[in-house]
């Protein structure tokens, strides 16, 4: 294992220290417990948006802290969910009194830790709602699994919901918007190479010299299928069609019911894409892929969307949600309406995403 780190034990902390040094105008980092938060937090009159998860997916989430996006992010160890005390402290720090929204990727660890954190925060008088992102179509069923993983749509949700919070949406409306984004976003990824978790020191999985893994998660979890390398256009088609032709998907997610004062199970079903839909398209590198290759993928994706009658109204091509140095790509399509596009276009000033600011 050759990495630009000092040692695995200090990697996450030193990286965060570097981020704090590089962006003092945008964010600060608190340690013990660890969280990244907006330099100007708490922002008066604004609901606070908090996310978090294992490290190793940078810029997600810490790199999306800043004006127009997240108020705080809670990074765990590499690929390990953060702990509730991090989220609780983060919530206390950035809550302006308008409440806190937790955006949570659907991994059992993340879900449970954020639920505990929400309970703890509520016990301290902070209003909190949790919304889960589960958009990875590589996971087929939700009955026999943890359900779909939270992947690319998380980035788009953080941008859109962050902008809405900036505009003054209240907590309930932000929760509804986040759920709406989730119900309209779908992703699928693939890997050319594995990544190596620093603490482990060896590749998470072995891929032959001419093998690729389709439907990979963002932690090097195995995908749907291992196959021989094929040209970028074919890979793109495989991913894009899996997303576009994905049938309606029903899942049961846990949300906090403020009226009842308890967690309830909510059943949600999304609608497949159809001709005429407008979408935001993200071609996301897994960390080790040159951007020039991502554009090759975007080229084909644009052709496919056109063929299928989908209009790409906005796009992102680059590294936004990664798996350390893994080579590969993830495609995300998010069906949008005018509200979402407007919010997308609002200013954002974070290390990982920045415009109009």
């Amino acid at each position, binding site marked *: 294992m050759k990495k630009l780190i000092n040692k695995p034990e200090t990697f996450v902390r030193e990286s965060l220290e570097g981020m704090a040094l590089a962006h003092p105008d945008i964010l600060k980092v608190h340690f013990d*417990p660890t969280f990244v938060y907006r330099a100007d937090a708490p922002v008066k009159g604004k609901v606070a948006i908090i996310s978090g998860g*294992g490290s190793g997916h940078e810029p997600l989430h810490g790199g999306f802290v800043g004006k127009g996006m997240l108020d705080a992010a809670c990074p*765990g*160890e590499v*690929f*390990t*969910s*953060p*702990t*509730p*005390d991090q989220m609780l402290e983060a919530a206390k720090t950035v809550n302006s009194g308008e409440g806190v929204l937790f955006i949570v990727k659907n*991994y*059992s*660890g993340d879900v*449970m*830790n954020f*639920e*505990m954190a929400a309970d703890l925060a509520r016990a301290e008088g902070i209003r909190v709602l949790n919304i889960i992102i589960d958009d990875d179509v590589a*996971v087929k069923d939700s009955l*026999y*699994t*943890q359900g779909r*993983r939270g992947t690319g749509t998380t980035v788009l949700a953080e941008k859109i919901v962050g902008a809405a919070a900036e505009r003054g949406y209240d907590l309930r409306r932000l929760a509804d918007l986040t759920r709406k984004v989730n119900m309209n976003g779908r992703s699928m990824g693939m890997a050319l190479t594995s990544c190596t*978790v620093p*603490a*482990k020191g060896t590749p*998470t999985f072995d891929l032959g010299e001419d093998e690729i893994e389709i439907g990979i*998660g963002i*932690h*090097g*979890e*195995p995908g749907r299928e291992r196959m021989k390398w094929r040209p970028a256009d074919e890979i793109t088609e495989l991913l894009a069609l899996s997303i576009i032709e994905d049938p309606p998907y029903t899942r049961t997610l*846990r949300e906090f019911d403020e009226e009842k004062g308890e967690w309830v199970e909510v059943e949600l079903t999304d609608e497949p894409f159809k001709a005429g839909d407008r979408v935001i398209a993200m071609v996301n590198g897994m960390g080790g892929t040159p951007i020039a290759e991502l554009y090759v993928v975007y080229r084909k994706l644009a052709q496919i969307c056109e063929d299928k009658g989908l209009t790409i109204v906005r796009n992102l091509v680059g590294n936004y949600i990664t798996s350390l140095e893994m080579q590969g790509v993830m495609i995300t399509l998010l069906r949008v309406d005018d509200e979402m596009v407007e919010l997308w276009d609002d200013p954002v000033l974070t290390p990982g995403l920045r415009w109009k600011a």
Partner: protein
Amino acid sequence: MVTRDQIVEWLKLVARVLEENKDYLTKLDAAIGDADHGINMDRGFKKVMSQLPSVQDKDIGSILKTTGMALISSVGGAGGPLYGTLFMRAGMAVANKYELTDEDLVHMWEAAVEGVIQRGRAQPGDKTMVDALLPAVEAMKKALEEGADTVEILRRGVAAAEKGMKDTIPLQARKGRASYLGERSIGHQDPGATSSYMLLKALLDVVSKEAGEEETSSE
């Protein structure tokens, strides 16, 4: 009867056992998860050990709640909230006690495992720690009803946990990371069920040792 000092001894033994089995548990997790369960648990119980001195003179409930909080704030992943909840609920079930009757002991485990199930919503057969914990609780309840003594209650609990742990091997996972593997999760022992068995086994070892019985290896 289990004393406060035995509970303290138990936590220390768990810390030792998890340290010794760090690589083993991580290897199990590598096969069907993300190769960190041993690392996570070891980190968690190191934290528990660092906080133990400041609470070991308190009641058992406080000690266990502190243990739960330490795990919650240091383990992360799925294991953190699950084991954190287990110890929190255990502590709440035996609040203010300095020793546990056999009824207390069984009630404590019942409450603890209930907490795990509430938190993780796993069903028996989902290939999780619940597959070790729930049979153990049922066996202990039954043993208690049948009038078994403390060591025997725990012995039956451990036996059931061990069986439950081994029985996870042929199962297909439906919770946690392993569930993404689908059929490929079959044939591997669940790491969480394994650490749960170790937890119970360590308690048996501590209690039976003081009851004059021979300690057996913990793996």
